[in-house]
């Protein structure tokens, strides 16, 4: 009888054809993340994404701060999408503390959330452009983003991390004349992003580089648990703004963009289409919003949770479903706080998509997953 070593102890047979490449961290093509790629010539044999590099322990830190002081640091994982990443937390705290939100505040939240989605998507699009070597598509979104950042600055007083959503509404009311400025800026912004199609999405080289690369079938997209634009690019019509409307989304006319191809091109196009839909939603919200009224229900200092209970709230962020699970034990701090983020759920698909692809496709497939490295590693 031959003795066989347990699986972990046996030496792996070394294939000399295969080279291991540490793409990142501190790599122009992976951001803060490390992707361990094994290549055979120009083909990727295996890929192991390693998001644990910018670890901040956000979830653990949240257990040591009360419900209000958690706000400015919980938005850190995605500073470009800070309204959306606070959204489920604020909704959850409102339920735990038991507090109602004024009608006008709900509309302000929707406007801020959609503006932030555009700000995030523009940043994402800029990086997608430079990943494909298209420097014009890097500079244009980075410049046009300023329009919306100026709007958010008017609204919240801060340019990047707004800390605007608070339990019971939003921190401040809109400045005077904001509606007109917002409408004008958003109309111009929409006109501007339509120009991107000519230089980027209709570019023959871009199409030939992203079509039929990293194809994620409808079944695989569901099986791997992807979300957001990745899921919708594979033909699944799933958007939390429609399926589980929060705040006033059920009063607005929301459409989602679905594409069937499931390749990098579809995944890169869906967020761009979403930005136009966001502009639509902002216009509707500006029209339907009550012109006056309170935007914040006053809270006692250091609000406490009502007894032992837990709540799970989720919203549709720029990267997909973003959930927040809060357990309360009746104290002023959350007993536990966990976040389920779109980036991590989409990253799971990366090794499946990259296997067998060429090394040149790595950046285009990787970034088409609408991934934000810091968010995956909270």
């Amino acid at each position, binding site marked *: 009888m031959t003795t066989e070593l347990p699986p972990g102890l046996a030496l792996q047979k070394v294939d000399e054809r295969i080279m291991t490449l540490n793409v990142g961290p501190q790599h122009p093509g992976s951001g803060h993340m490390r992707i361990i790629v094994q290549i055979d010539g120009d083909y990727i044999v295996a890929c192991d994404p390693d998001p644990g590099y910018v670890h901040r322990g956000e979830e653990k830190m949240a257990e040591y701060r009360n419900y209000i002081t958690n706000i400015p640091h919980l938005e850190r994982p995605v500073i470009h999408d800070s309204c959306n990443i606070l959204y489920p937390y604020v909704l959850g705290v409102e339920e735990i503390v038991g507090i109602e939100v004024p009608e006008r505040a709900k509309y302000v939240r929707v406007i801020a959330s959609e503006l932030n989605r555009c700000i995030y998507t523009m940043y994402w699009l800029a990086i997608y452009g430079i*990943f494909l070597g*298209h420097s*014009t598509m890097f500079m*244009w979104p980075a*410049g046009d983003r300023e329009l919306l950042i100026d709007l958010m600055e008017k609204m919240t007083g801060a340019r990047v991390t707004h800390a605007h959503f608070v339990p019971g509404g939003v921190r401040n009311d809109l400045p005077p004349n904001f509606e007109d400025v917002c409408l004008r800026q958003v109309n111009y912004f929409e006109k501007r992003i339509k120009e991107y199609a000519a*230089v980027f999405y209709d570019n023959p080289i871009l199409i030939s580089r992203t079509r039929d690369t990293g194809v994620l079938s409808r079944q695989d997209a569901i099986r791997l648990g992807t979300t957001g634009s990745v899921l919708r690019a594979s033909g699944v019509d799933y958007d939390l703004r429609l399926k589980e409307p929060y705040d006033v989304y059920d009063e607005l006319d929301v459409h989602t963009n679905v594409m069937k191809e499931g390749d990098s091109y579809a995944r890169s196009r869906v967020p761009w289409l979403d930005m136009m839909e966001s502009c639509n939603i902002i216009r509707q919200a500006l029209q339907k919003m009550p012109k006056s009224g309170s935007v914040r229900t006053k809270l006692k200092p250091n609000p406490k949770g009502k007894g032992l209970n837990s709540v799970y709230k989720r919203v549709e962020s720029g990267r997909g479903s973003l959930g927040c699970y809060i357990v309360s034990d009746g104290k002023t701090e959350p007993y536990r706080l966990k976040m389920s983020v779109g980036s991590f759920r989409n990253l799971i698909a990366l090794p499946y998509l990259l296997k067998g692809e060429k090394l040149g496709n*790595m*950046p285009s497939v990787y970034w088409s997953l609408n991934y934000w490295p810091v968010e995956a590693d909270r």
Partner: protein
Amino acid sequence: MSVIAPKFKLSEFIKSLLDNAFWILLLLVLVGIPAISILLFAIEMPVINGELLTPFLALTWIADPSRTLPIIKAFMATDIFRVMAFPGFGFAALLAAGTIFVERKMLAKLQLRVGPFYCGKVEGILQLMGDGLKLISKEIIIPAKADKPIFWAAPVMFVGAAAAFVALIPVAPGWVVADVDLGLLGVFAVIGFFPIITILSAWSANSKFPFIGGIRALFQMVSFEIPLILSLLGVVILTGTLNLSEIAASQSSFPWIVFLPVGAVVFFITMLAELERIPFDLPEAESEIVAGWLTELSGMMYGLVQLGTYLKLYAFAALFVVLFLGGWNGPMVVPPFPAEIITDGIVMGPITAKIPGLPVFTQEMLNGTLWFVLKTVGVIFFILLPRGVFPRIRIDMLLSLGWTKLIGLAFVNIFIALGLLYAGVLGPGGLQ
């Protein structure tokens, strides 16, 4: 922060001009005069026409054109002038610097970039100096296990090969650094050096990213050299010579692009690939392989490679002008110079010494240079333009483009040239 450039105001423009003039004058006074005095007094002065050139004599000569002009012309007739200043390294480096500046400005305009608009008071002129200072001030880091002599030598060899390429290009009738009979063959030979230098640099760095980038560069350069050389054969067939000056001279009535548009297109595309310009900048695809074979080069070593790249860009653009756009040929636009300025019988230096009485420069040379520079700048503009429009393509797409499409088109071009020759439309040396 606003990304929109401010409106042009004449008063502010004049003010900025005066402002800059003041600083330049101050700089000249503070730096220029001491430097000139050191030069004049510290260096042993040459003897010209039997007189020792003392500083004071030099000052009187500067005031007297009848004395300075012969010296200038004598200097212009020497090989040193040809190699160092015009049409050699100095001219090419100046054009290369101009190319970098124009590229920055053009892309800034296209992409709403801020730096090249505002850096420095006159239209971002200080951006170039900023780039240069940054490169000079960076530390040169060499990987521990690199093959150091080769690693050091590769950037220098790159600039050397690019300069050799520049030396073969004739700028005007009689104005070329190396007038070789087999000039086009020399061009092929010089182009053949670049893949070797690239792979040497990549291999000696002993790092994975330069290795992959170097192999890619090798693939790209080798597979695009074949259509490049094939696309030039049409011109060789029609002119019956490999001498670049004769090829340029043969296009006095028609540039060859009129008869060989296919060859010109193939040459232009392969030129982009040889220059590693977008959309063919695969060897330094920064999102996958950091900077390709340049990854481990830092500081001024990287700067040297960049200089070599832009020298190469000028040389390729100039070669395109010589082969397809008629070289220096063009209508006479330079106002006629007085005969004594052009053909004063000063004979000095090895080239003119062989043929006594040859003028240092002629009216044709001046006019030819003007046309040549204009055409070259135009070609460079078209080389720069794709950078604002296209993303990068993939290595397999690039190789299939080179091996399947461009080689086929290059053969079509050869058949067109042969057809024109046998139909009797054109003969060796030009239109029949």
